[in-house]
């Protein structure tokens, strides 16, 4: 079983793919597989095959075509506070990108720039072919293509679950009520709570509310889904049900940008991880790169604190 699973994994030390024939060991901390020999050399203090010193590591899923989100020298200030400093980043269709970092590092702000819940003051930002950074651009049609899930769910308390999900499809996409409800019921099935269609948000558990919020985001058939700490407000026993929905979504090839403290999710689902600190993307790379041999001191410190 482990052999099969590791067949497409990359050794974090030599960055070569791990094949079935290789002798492998698993990291005692995070369970990531690596070549036993590489690990021995590393612990012996020897430098393994020239490991790139730059934080960038090649993405396993070789991006194809145009990026769907492109930050080009993006800067953002809140008054005098410089919260995003020269962010350059490209996210490709189908990628799952996880943003991690300490509190106040600008993760939420970076995410919220993508659908212009925050405006940027310098640099360019392209999303789905639109120049979001152009203040003259009408953002409304772009937002319709981007679903967003918030830490505190933000369901509309005066509407039933069904009404929450169908509001945007009906008012923005001008769908008929019947059509919108059909899609909504389908999505509720998918997130596992079809029986709650006529309940009000206040009658649901936190985990159920967050799954409704995901269904609400998906109802617009978005090209991108943004998640801002979707499990941080949940009781531990409900985190899994929400993460499972997100994993399923990732498997279907949804483009996802996820701010989270769930390192298990990052390790398992992310194509790439970005580590932010002080408004800067300090390090980026595959989960393997990240959790096994991060390069930057700040990343190591952060990972030591949370793992």
């Amino acid at each position, binding site marked *: 079983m482990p052999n099969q699973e590791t067949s497409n994994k990359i050794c974090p030390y030599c960055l070569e793919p791990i094949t079935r024939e290789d002798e492998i060991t698993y990291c005692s901390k995070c369970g990531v597989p690596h070549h036993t020999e590489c690990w021995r050399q590393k612990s012996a203090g020897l430098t393994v095959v020239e490991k790139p010193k730059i934080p960038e590591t090649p993405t396993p899923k070789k991006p194809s075509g145009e990026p769907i989100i492109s930050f080009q020298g993006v800067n953002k200030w809140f008054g005098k506070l410089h919260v995003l400093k020269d962010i350059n980043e490209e996210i490709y269709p189908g990628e799952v990108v996880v943003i991690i970092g300490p509190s106040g590092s600008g993760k939420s702000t970076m995410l919220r720039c993508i659908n212009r819940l925050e405006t940027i003051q310098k640099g360019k930002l392209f999303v789905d072919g639109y120049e979001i950074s152009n203040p003259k651009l009408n953002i409304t049609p772009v*937002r319709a293509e981007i679903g967003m899930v918030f830490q505190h769910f933000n369901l509309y308390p005066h509407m039933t679950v069904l009404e929450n999900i169908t509001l945007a499809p009906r008012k923005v996409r001008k769908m008929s009520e019947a059509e919108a409800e059909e899609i909504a019921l389908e999505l509720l099935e998918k997130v596992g709570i079809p029986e709650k269609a006529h309940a009000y948000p206040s009658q649901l558990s936190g985990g159920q509310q967050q799954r409704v*919020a995901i269904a*609400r985001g998906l109802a617009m058939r978005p090209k991108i889904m943004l998640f801002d700490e979707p499990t941080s407000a949940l009781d531990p026993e409900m985190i899994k049900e929400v993460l499972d929905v997100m994993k399923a979504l990732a498997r279907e090839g949804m483009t996802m940008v996820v701010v989270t403290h769930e390192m298990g999710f990052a390790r398992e689902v992310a194509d790439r991880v970005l580590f932010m600190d002080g408004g800067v993307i300090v390090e980026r790379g595959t989960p393997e790169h990240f959790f096994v041999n991060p390069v930057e001191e700040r990343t190591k410190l952060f990972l030591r604190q949370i793992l």
Partner: protein
Amino acid sequence: MDYEFNWLVLWEYRDLLLEGLVLTIKLSAISIVLSTIVGTIFGIMRLSKSLIIRLIASSYVEFFLNTPLIIQLFFWYFALPMALPGWLQSWLWAHNYEFIASVIGLTIYTSTFIAEAVRAGIQSIDKGQREAALASGLTGFQTLWYVILPQAIRIVIPPVVNQFLNLTKNSSLAMTIAVPELTYQAQAIESLTFRGFEAFTAATLIYICLTLTISLVMGKVERWAAKGQRPMAA
């Protein structure tokens, strides 16, 4: 004390009282509707992104909120017509201008309080609601209409109902510009019969009935607006 009560005068002058009541209801009802519309618009304007719109709205509110109502009534009734062309003046005088002026005065005065209530109500809605709606692709207006206002309304209703009650009571000031509403008629009965005690007791009771009716009706509206929503968190 040898005042002898004669409640029969009320029956004798019932037509005056009834006319007064009808006019008070008309004056209050029209002003309630108009001040709610105007107040809601100015309340929303105070939260606009545009500095100019915010300034206009807050000047309006601050100015009319801080001027005595009776001065405003006198202004609309005595001063405004002088600024108007002669033909418009005579048209106004021929069309119950005292009534129009009192509607303007009551509407503007009350709308400032309603604007404040609406602004506070909207501001009390979690900003995540607005963000979720905008993020889903709704326009600013759709967000306000489908998401924010339906939630704000139940917070806004109690203070606004208080303003409706104040407006109904304040409508008695219209007598000072010769609108023959309830208080005016009570005064008329007093001067015709010297039965001031009876006349004003009757007026008082009628005002109480009116305000109780408004409270009852709006209580129903409030329960309707709260349907499906959890009890408000403190």
